[in-house]
């Protein structure tokens, strides 16, 4: 098996190299390859994690933007549809009271009737 390896890797190991040196080189190469493989996986994992967090971050930002509007939005409450005449009567009665209160001829506590100039000297 080892011999076969040397034959196939003529460019890496010179024929004239002693066996023990070639063996050492082989061991070193194996070690290097063994280290490189997990490092590659680590980088790949890191890149995936980066993309994953990036996507989560963008999604979270978008969701927050949607959930917190910059202006106060007042959603009008739906008026329940009246089922009976008495409910209609109530609506109309409230309306009449509100309209009476809005009578523009009514004076809401005018400016205090007090003197603007108060002096001792003439």
């Amino acid at each position, binding site marked *: 098996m080892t011999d076969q390896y040397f034959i196939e890797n003529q460019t890496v190991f010179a024929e004239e190299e002693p066996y023990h040196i070639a063996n050492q080189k082989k061991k070193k190469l194996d070690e290097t390859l063994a280290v490189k493989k997990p490092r590659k996986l680590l980088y790949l994992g890191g890149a995936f994690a*980066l993309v994953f*967090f990036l996507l989560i971050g963008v999604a979270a*930002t978008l969701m927050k933007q949607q959930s917190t509007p910059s202006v106060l939005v007042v959603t009008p409450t739906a008026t329940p549809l009246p089922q009976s005449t008495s409910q209609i009567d109530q609506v*109309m009665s409230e309306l009449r009271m509100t309209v009476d209160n*809005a009578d*523009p001829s009514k004076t809401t506590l005018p*400016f205090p009737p007090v003197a603007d100039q108060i002096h*001792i000297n*003439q």
Partner: protein
Amino acid sequence: MRKTFCIVLCLITMVFVQSPGLVIAQVNPEITVIPQQIDPNKLPSLQQTYFAQLEEYRNQEQKYLVAKNQYHQLNTLASQEVAVAETRQLLSLRANVFLTYIEILDELLNQGKGIPLENKNPERVFLSLLTDKVQIHKSAVESAQNRFAIDQESINFAPTYKLLESHTYYILSLIKLGDMQVAYDKLLIARDVVKSYVQDQTLSTAVRAEKDRGFDEIERNIKVMDKTFTPIKTKVYSSSENKNLSAYSQLSSELSPVYAQINQVIQFLEEVRK
């Protein structure tokens, strides 16, 4: 080492990506609607105090006029002392009337519905500034010991008096418009309620057609009302000028047709619902 570096990198990325969201969350915190705190007894109590203070002021005004006339006729030091004391008292009582009146205006604004916040809030802030000015004036009057100091303080207060007067009429205009706006809004709600009620009823074709014509007439009236009401609102809300009694009186007369139209629509609604 590299593994640690990768983890740190991931964490940093996560923090940086999340941070805009955090910033947004800080800038736009969740809006909590705080229910408006209205004390139903506050306004009647303030009005009671106001009328009592006004009565006290009127009584003091008589004393002041008598003392002032006596001083001008007799021109003695004793009569001058009395005149100074009565004037000081009158100015102090007038300040009390103003302070209570400002509080009433603030409460009316606070309780007033239908007034845009961009108009309501600056006026409330201004009222608090006026309160400070009146209190300073009151303190200065109470510490004034001679006729020159009293007269000077009275002159100093004149611009504040004018400001208070003009803002009072503007605030009263806002309250009047707000009341009309609430009436208008309630009218639209009542129209929808009556309409849906009538639609749910089982009616003959002829009666339904009659009611539909009635609703058409109501819609036309509302449109006419809109055409009258909207320019009035725009004029008052957008203009900071014409803050005086005549502008306030003019507003009252301008709102009269809107009020009449609202009543007309109510009458139509009463007819249609039958």
